[in-house]
């Protein structure tokens, strides 16, 4: 049977990808953030999954305002890298896992999550930056197939934090019901506190971020009970992306082990974080 072996929470700020693409990670502005990634990268390189399920949001690229799915899962065999207005990132095309993706859709719908099914999907920085955080040097191909799971966080009403946590639990059940022996990593992406527009642009809330960083491991239910208004007020209009970490968390066991974490301000206009958790899988 398939199992979730670890979960990665990471910001997906486009400039983090640009820093890697432009070989600027050792510059003083970026070095603290990338130094903070190293321990997690070393551990993940020793614990490679067979498949990744990557929870993220599109940023006005593959998903337009004509059709806004609250949750969507992509089932194609491959996903091109999007041109977001400044050219494609120089990273490999992403290969999916159509059979597992189809199984996940069927399981989620049977589990009362009426998820939108996406086929053709160009993946933007929300997706490729977390992959680069995982593997900064993929060469010609990413190390394993990746299944995109999309959450609407840019048009109100976003799903509630509680619904995201419950989706994660259903995702975990679906993964564990897949008959093949696959080791699966789940990525929850976005955050931490940031706001791009309005008079509060540049908002950073390290107190809220630290609270979230702690409770995502030990008290995710408390985070799931926070309202959208609380996320927007405390973490900023784009900081609400942090609800996507709860999808990852829900897919994992109740007890998980924190392998690594880092927090850095700023990555352009954002508080950037990484938190890596090993699942307590029986028999491991």
């Amino acid at each position: 049977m398939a199992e979730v072996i670890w979960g990665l929470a990471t910001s997906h700020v486009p400039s983090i990808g640009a820093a890697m693409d432009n070989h600027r990670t050792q510059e003083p502005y970026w070095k603290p953030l990338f130094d903070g990634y190293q321990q997690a990268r070393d551990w993940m390189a020793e614990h490679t999954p067979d498949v990744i399920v990557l929870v993220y949001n599109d940023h006005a690229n593959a998903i337009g305002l004509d059709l806004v799915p609250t949750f969507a899962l992509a089932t194609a065999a491959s996903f091109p890298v999007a041109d977001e207005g400044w050219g494609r990132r120089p990273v490999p095309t992403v290969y999916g896992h159509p059979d597992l993706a189809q199984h996940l859709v069927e399981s989620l719908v049977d589990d009362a999550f009426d998820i939108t099914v996406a086929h053709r999907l160009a993946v933007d920085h929300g997706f490729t930056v977390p992959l680069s955080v995982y593997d900064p040097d993929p060469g010609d191909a990413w190390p394993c197939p990746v299944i995109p799971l999309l959450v609407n966080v840019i048009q109100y009403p976003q799903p509630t934090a509680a619904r995201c946590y419950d989706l994660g639990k259903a995702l975990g059940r679906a993964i564990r019901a897949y008959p093949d022996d696959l080791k699966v990593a789940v990525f929850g992406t976005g955050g931490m506190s940031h706001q791009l527009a309005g008079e509060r642009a540049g908002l950073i809330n390290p107190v809220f971020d630290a609270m979230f960083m702690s409770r995502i491991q030990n008290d995710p239910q408390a985070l799931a009970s926070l309202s959208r208004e609380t996320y927007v007020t405390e973490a900023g209009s784009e900081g609400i992306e942090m609800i996507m970490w709860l999808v990852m968390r829900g897919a994992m066991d109740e007890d998980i082990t924190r392998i690594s974490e880092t927090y850095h301000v700023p990555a352009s206009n954002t508080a950037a974080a990484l938190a890596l958790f090993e699942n307590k899988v029986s028999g491991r």
Partner: protein
Amino acid sequence: MTTKPAVPGTYVFDIADNRQGYAINKLCSTLTTPANRVRFLADEAGYCDRFDMTPAQRTALLKRDWRSLLDLGGSIFYVYKLATVDKLSMQYLGGVFTGMTTEDFIAAMRAGGRRCG
């Protein structure tokens, strides 16, 4: 009616904003191909004619009145594509939204970000 949060100094883009700003956002969404970026920069007014913008939206777009673009229904993720065509950064926009120079905005971020209440 809407239940969306009303947080001062904060845009919470919603369904009504989508309706109001649809043409702005649609135009910006087309700037994701090199050919369209070239066509837009070659004839901005002509390019705008293809989209059903109000006069105020059209003026805001052509004059790069960033605050008005958001007030008239633009989503920051779409409007940012227009800024990118102009080779402007999110830090530049942050300065515009907060009344700061780009340099001061960058410095505020490097000092730990802005505490907003």
